[in-house]
């Protein structure tokens, strides 16, 4: 299973973290520090796997951003590597040519998308189309609620409460 997902920039800034195994706040900070230390110093043309603390870290760099997932040592590494790519492709489709800034300012969107892709550290949906549909359905639900809230009758109701 995937124990956690990290998105870390080349400068070591954390862009997203998601933990599927119980780590305390202290442990989380330590894990991030250790893994960034190892991962960011690896040169290009090396393999995408890192052995760390009895587990395996599968990572891939996209432009300035490292995507990394930590799995059990006997899990399938290449499968996980393609989960990462699958995630990136879905982000790309959603944001339209995604860049680091998109993820910084819309980190909550990245969380929504990740939740449609992975639950309990296992992949739940491998169709990009299905994920895209589900996310846009969520967006429209939120939009609808917003419109409702800003409709005139609602404003009056709020004011006279």
């Amino acid at each position: 299973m995937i124990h956690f997902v990290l998105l870390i920039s080349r400068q070591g800034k954390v862009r997203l973290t998601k933990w599927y195994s119980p780590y305390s706040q202290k442990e989380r900070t330590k894990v991030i520090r250790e893994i960034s230390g190892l991962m960011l110093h690896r040169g290009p043309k090396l393999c995408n796997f890192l052995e760390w603390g009895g587990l395996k870290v599968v990572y891939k760099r996209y432009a300035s951003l490292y995507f990394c997932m930590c799995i059990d040592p006997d899990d399938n590494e290449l499968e996980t590597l393609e989960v990462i790519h699958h995630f990136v492709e879905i982000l790309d489709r959603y944001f339209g040519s995604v860049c680091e800034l998109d993820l910084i300012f819309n980190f909550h969107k990245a969380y929504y998308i990740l939740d449609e892709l992975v639950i309990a550290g296992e992949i739940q949906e491998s169709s990009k189309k299905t994920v895209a549909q589900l996310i846009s359905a969520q967006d429209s639900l939120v939009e609808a609620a917003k419109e409702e809230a800003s409709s005139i009758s609602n404003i009056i109701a709020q004011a006279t409460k």
Partner: protein
Amino acid sequence: MALSGMRGLSVFISDIRNCQNKEQERLRVDKELGNIRTRFKNEKGLTPYEKKKYVWKMLYIHMLGYDVDFGHMETVSLISAPKYPEKQVGYIVTACLLNENHDFLRIAINTVRNDIIGRNETFQCLALTMVGNIGGREFAESLAPDVQKLLISSSCRPLVRKKAALCLLRLYRKNPDVVNVDGWADRMAQLLDERDLGVLTSSMSLLVALVSNNHEAYWSCLPKCVKTLERLARNQDIPQEYTYYGIPSPWLQVKTMRALQYFPTIEDPNTRRSLFEVLQRILMGTDVVKNVNKNNASHAVLFEALSLVMHLDAEKEMMSQCVALLGKFIAVREPNIRYLGLENMTRMLMVTDVQDIIKRHQAQIITSLKDPDISIRRRALDLCYGMCDVSNAKDIVEELLQYLSTSDFAMREELSLKAAILAEKFAPDLSWYVDVILQLIDKAGDFVSDDIWFRVVQFVTNNEDLQPYAAAKAREYLDKPAIHETMVKVSAYLLGEYSHFLARRPGCSPKEIFSIIHEKLPTVSMSTVPILLSTYAKILMHTQPPEPDLQNQIWAIFHKYESCIDVEIQQRAVEYFALSAKGAALADILAEMPKFPERQSALIKKAEDIETDTAEQSAIKLRAQQQMSNALVVTDQRPANGSPAVGQLSLVKLPSMSSNPDNYSADEGVTQENGILSTVDPQPPSADLLSDLLGPLAIEGPPGAVQSEQNVPGADGVPSAADAAAIVPIEEQKNTVQPIGNIAERFHALCLKDSGVLYEDPNIQIGIKAEWRAHQGRLVLFLGNKNTSPLVSVQALILPPSHLKMELSLVPETIPPRAQVQCPLEVVNLHPSRDVAVLDFSYKFGSHAVNIKLRLPAVLNKFLQPLTLTTNEFFPQWRSLSGPPLKLQEVVRGVKPLPLMEMANLLSSLRVMVSSGLDPNPNNLVASTTFYSESTRAMLCLVRIETDPADRTQLRMTVASGDPTLTFELMEYIKEQLVDIPTGSAPPPMAPAVASPMAPVAPLNDPGAILAGLL
């Protein structure tokens, strides 16, 4: 793109991005946290939008690595909001901010359950996602049936059902009992007929978890898995959107093959045939293509197929096909494939008849040791290690040695450990083994742990043929200009024992040997000096007839170190000096070390402990069991006379400054008797690391404890400090799990303080926190699982001594991954005694059952309350308690030499308060305390210690109290603390004959008795 704009959030993120440095960022974050805190305080005025915004900000701050220790309640409460946008944020942020052990999650269980059983599909999805990501045990118990219903419901849409499948998987991992095997196996098989690929993928993950625990119940799923695999890999019968770079859902293929690996065999010939057809197709039909992602996906499938083939024990032809593929992979340019090729080859070693084919690739594997990528180098090292056997050990170990000089620091320790183990396991001859280890020390001395050179010493000691060779080798290395300190240690030791075999060679006269070793002395640290002193003593002993010149030189050195600040060195110098004057007796005392009892190599044990239970490692273990190396055969001879090692060790322990020669010759007699009668010591040879270390060093060890043991009269039947300490190591040998840190030291530390770690090993940490009030105490045991898998069959039993009433609350049978369990323990002290309570603790991790017995620090001093008395209070009491049994006096020898101040500190750490200035003599200490127990109630205790400034190793102690038992016990307890050296190197239990009988204290000729100042 429909981004829900949250201006406040964007502004905050921009601000953070604009911070020039970490300090500014912290200020900005603190300001924001302050703001959020104030806003949350007045929750009524918050609009749902604002609440959402603040909660997101909190998550952002948390992600940046700052502690967010408030607002959890507000976040969790968003879950119960009626509208979707708030509920969504509540669920997602809760799942990110909290983990399963968080208390606030409990209050949400009801809301979550209502969302799951409610009719709103979107709410169901949110709830299932959160529970799937962070649900813990309590969620498992209260939600599993509802989640199961959703998964098999025909009215639910796939988007809910696939989430339900993974949610159930999470709950099953937390508590396997929530899935009832009887009813569920059929349902599971039905689920595999699912057409929706999302639901099928999730269900397959669930199946993997279920069959990994219990494959028998799920036999009916096996043919369905094969069908699914056929559908994907052969028929490619799958909607377009589920192909990934043209490959039919690689994830589902991988999971299906993973599930199949948990069934031991496939009995039905038709199913087996179909499966092999598909596997053959995957093995042969996977080509290397240009597109990276397609390549990765197809090879993900291929490597899983390889594992499955290995598991199914296919025909030899298919196996060699697999090895051929792997051989191709380890030579390709693409680093991922190279890495996986090496990794899978290591796994393949488990299949016995392919080893010879793998050996053909040895050259390529050794090249990979020099790969620019450390991940690949690690795999190559593991494979080299795994494939090593008697036939290729020489080549491989020599490669490893060569590689050692250039390898990176991160790997050197592992590398040298592995080289040492291989050399030991597969040595074609023993002289080669000695060569390898000496080279190892020479090249990577910093990374050669003590166990490695201890092991060489053991081998050499146990093999007479080897001794001249080893000595000659050691002599050669000493000629090198700069050698590692470990090399100094091992060569000094070997030459001390065996240099007399070399006497006729040029440059090897005792004098020459001595001077070349002595040259190194200025360069070594304190820990090496004692070994050198022993070597000098041995050289002296072997020089017959004595050379006055050499003798004077060595005596001068002993003399110089007689005033050394290091106690160990000082003691040796004094003792060797005295012994060397004994002439012929010296030869007996410093005779060659006896053979060591055979025991499992501490190295191999260590390596096994480091390894976790993955497939490749079990392959190594398996092979380790199958193959018997030459080295082990050669050394397997028991010492000819079969004399018990413990008895002989006590011989070398003897060189202590015993003033009573009879005492010591009596002991020697005992040893010889043991040798002749071949009585087997009741204690089996200890296999633990500790005694391995003790073994070779016992030659020089006159630890103070042994001495004091002999000198301090103690009542019969009262367990001595040494005996008590022995409880722990004896138990250890059953365990393959090595404790981290020294158990005895931890216990001693906890006797003086109230919280700390009692025990730790790679799987568990046991901490203690205690509060003491009068005769009662409350301890809390913290049992922390360090692993990502649960510890099971956890049991804790308290074995209380008769004077303590102890009640341990229920200890759970399972400790979840990375969780900590607290178990309170109530203690009541009934009457004074020094006996110690023992915690009998056991657990199971994987296949290892671990059992440890730990002393609990509920010791006498915990029931003391320090008390300061004035002169007017002290003396009337002191006089009123006159003479035995209420007032006892005794001369204690073999005391740790401590300055008076430190002794006072030691007493006050025992909660015995020193009242300064009460005794007119500045060399005396007077102290008082109150002892609490049910029988004595609060009882005043008075202590007086008279020290001799000329000899700090002895003192006279007087203890008085209103209760005879208390007086005796307190006296003995303080004595133990003063003479006890709390290190792990507990001396081996002495033979009963060694313990001196109840010797009355010599009253007059004793310097202690001449001390003035009796009150």
